C-alpha cells in the first residue's frame, strides 16, 4: 500500500478558489486524487471544476465525508484554516502555506494534537503516493510507484532525488515533504515509523538539512527501531553558522544543527549517507 494517503483518500482544498489552490486542485484531479470539494468562506454554493465549494470546513466535511485537507490559504489565514480542519474532524491536514509565524504554529500544533489530527507541514510540498494520489504540489513526473519511501524537509531537492530514482527505474511507495520550518506537524521520526510499519515500503530515503535536531532524532530512531535500510542526504555542509539558508528552520545556531553532526549521527545509526544526492538511487538499488 503506502502511508498516509492512497487512492481512497477524499480531499478538501482550503482556498480552492484561490490562484494556487485552484491550480494545484486541477493537477491533483488530473493525477487521480479524489478531490471532494473545497472551502472558501463567502463562496459556499459555488462550484470549482465540478466540485462543490463550501463556506466552512464543518459543512464541507458533513456533506462530503472527506478525511484529508490541503491548506493553500495565505499565511495570515493559514493557522485558522488548519484549526478549522482539525475541529471539523479531518484526520490528515497538509499545509502548503509558507511564512506562518512560529508562535501561531505552536498553538496550531497543540490544537491539532488535542483534536487527534495529523498535520503535515507547514511550508511543505505535500504528499504523493505514486499511481494513487497526490495532495500538494509535488509534480507528477518525479516518481513512479515502487517500494522506496521518501521523506524530506525540502521541495525541489526531493523532486531532484525522486526524478533521479525514476530515471534509474526505482519506484516510490510514498513521498512525504515535511517542510523546512522550525515547528512542523510531522517529523522525520513520525514518518520513519510509518514507513517501518508499511509492508509496501522496503527501503527509505531521508533528505535532511541543517538546523534543529530532527535528523539526530531520526538517527536515534533508525538505530533503535528500524529494520529497513535508510539512505540519507543532508544539505548545507557548506553553509556558515548563524545564517538562515532560505528555510526558516535552516540555521546552524550555537553550534547546534550542523550538517556534520547530523551526517555523523545518521552514519553511526547505520544509514548510508550520500555526499551527493545523485548518489541516492545507487545507495537504494
Amino acid at each position, binding site marked *: 500500500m503506502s502511508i498516509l494517503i492512497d487512492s481512497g483518500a477524499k480531499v478538501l482544498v482550503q482556498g480552492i478558489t484561490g490562484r494556487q489552490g485552484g491550480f494545484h486542485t486541477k*493537477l491533483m484531479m488530473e493525477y487521480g486524487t479524489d478531490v471532494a470539494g473545497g472551502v472558501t468562506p463567502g463562496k459556499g454554493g459555488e462550484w470549482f471544476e465540478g466540485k462543490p465549494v463550501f463556506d466552512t470546513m464543518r459543512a464541507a466535511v458533513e456533506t462530503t465525508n472527506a478525511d484529508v485537507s490541503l491548506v493553500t490559504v495565505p499565511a495570515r489565514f493559514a493557522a485558522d484554516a488548519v484549526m478549522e480542519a482539525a475541529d471539523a474532524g479531518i484526520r490528515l491536514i497538509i499545509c502548503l502555506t509558507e511564512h506562518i509565524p512560529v508562535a501561531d504554529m505552536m498553538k496550531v500544533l497543540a490544537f491539532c494534537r488535542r483534536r487527534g489530527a495529523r498535520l503535515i507541514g507547514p511550508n511543505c510540498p505535500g504528499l504523493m503516493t505514486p499511481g494513487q494520489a497526490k495532495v500538494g504540489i509535488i*509534480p507528477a513526473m518525479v516518481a513512479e510507484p515502487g517500494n522506496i519511501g521518501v521523506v524530506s524537509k525540502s521541495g525541489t531537492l526531493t523532486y*531532484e532525488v525522486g526524478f533521479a530514482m525514476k530515471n534509474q527505474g526505482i519506484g516510490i511507495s510514498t513521498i512525504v515533504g515535511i517542510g523546512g520550518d522550525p515547528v512542523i506537524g510531522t517529523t522525520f521520526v513520525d514518518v520513519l515509523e510509518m514507513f517501518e510499519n508499511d509492508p509496501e515500503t522496503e527501503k527509505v530515503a531521508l533528505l535532511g538539512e541543517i538546523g534543529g535536531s530532527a535528523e539526530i532524532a531520526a538517527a536515534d530512531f533508525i538505530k533503535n527501531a528500524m529494520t529497513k535500510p535508510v539512505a540519507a542526504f543532508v544539505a548545507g555542509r*557548506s553553509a556558515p553558522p548563524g545564517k538562515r539558508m532560505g528555510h526558516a528552520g535552516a540555521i546552524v545556531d550555537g553550534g547546534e544543527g550542523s550538517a556534520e553532526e547530523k551526517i555523523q549521527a545518521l552514519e553511526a545509526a547505520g544509514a548510508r549517507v550520500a*555526499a551527493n544526492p545523485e548518489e541516492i538511487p545507487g545507495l537504494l538499488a
Partner: protein
Amino acid sequence: MKLHEYQSKFLFRDYGIPIPQGKVATTAEDAFEIASELGGLVVVKAQVRVGGRGKAGGVKVARDAEEARRYADQILGMEIKGLRVEKVLVDPGADIKQEIYLAITNDRGAGMPLIMASMEGGMDIEELNRERPGAIIREHVEPILGLQNYQMTYIASAMGLPRARWRDFGTVLAGLYECYLQSDAELAEINPLVITGEGALLAVDGKVIIDDNALFRQPALVEDHDTSDEQESERLAREAGITYIKLDGQIGCMVNGAGLAMTTMDMTKLYGDDDGIGPANFLDIGGGATPEQVAAALRIILSDANVKCVLFNIFGGITRCDEVADGILTAYNEVKPAVPMIIRLQGTNAAEGNQIIDAAQIPNISSAETLTEAAQRAVAAVKQGA
C-alpha cells in the same frame, strides 16, 4: 530579524524589565557627552549583531568621560567579523554581585516556548550547556496557555535564586515572556541578568531575534530595524525580495528552492574544496521568478568581486524549464556578465530549455546535464580562470 543589544534592552524596558540608563552614540563626541551625563565608570559597547564583541575589542570599560570618548573613537568604524561598527552603547557600570542567564526561545522539537535559566550567567549558553548542563533549568511553556506563576516559582526555586529575589525575578521573567510573545521573538535573552550590590535585578546585556514570518504584525519593530551593520549585497537582495547570503567562495549559485540551493553550494565545495574552490553565495530564486528577478539576482551575485563563475541549477517541477531558460537569457542580455555561466536544467521541459540555451550560442554560457556535471564544470571554470 536580529535586534541590536540597545534595541533589545530598550524593548525589555517597555515590558518592565530594569536596564542600565545608557544611551547610544554614533560619534566619539556623543559618547563623551553621554558618559559625562552618567558620571563615573561607563561601558562602551560596539553595536554589531554578532557574538564575541568582547574578544574582538568591541567592549571597553572607561573610568571617565574622556576615556569613554577615546574608546568610542577606537570602536566606531571597527570591523567585527566583517561587520562595521556604526554605533556604540554607553552604559553606566553596574555593581555586579551575581550574573544570571535567562532566556526564552522556541523549542523546535517540542513545538513549545522554552525558558532557560541559570545562576551561572555571563558566559556563553552553549559553552555552559556543554560544560555544566545541569546548571541550566529548563521549563516549557504551553503555547496556548502561556506562562503560569507556579512555573516562575519553580524556576526561581530550582535554579537556587535567593528567596529575597524571587518577586523581582518573577517580574523580570513575566516581562520577558510578554516581550517574547508580543514581539513574536524566536529568542529573547538576558545575559547577564545581574544582581547588583543593593540586591536589584538589572538586564545588562540583551539579545532579541524576531521571527521574520511575523514581521507583518510587528510594524514598530520593522520601522526601528537598524541595518547599519548589514552587508551591502545582502541589503540589495533584501530590497529586491531575494534570499541571498554572501559566502567566501568563487562560484555564484542561482537555484530554485532552499534545499536544492544548499545542495548546489555543497556540490561546488565537494568537487572544489581541494583546490580552495566553493560557493560564493546562497541564493534561492523561488518558484515563479520573473526575468526581472533573475536579472536582479544575477547583478547581486556579480556584485561580489570573488565570483569567477555562475552556476544555475533549476529543477522544473511545476515551473517549466523552457520558461526559465527564456528568463535567464533575458537576464543575461540585461546584465551581460563576463564570467563563465553553467546552466543545468532538469525536470519539466528540460530538453526544450537546454535547446533554448544552446541555440542562443552565447560563448560564456554552457549547459550541463546533471548537478554533478554542472558543479564539476563550474569548479573547472574557476580553475581555468585562475
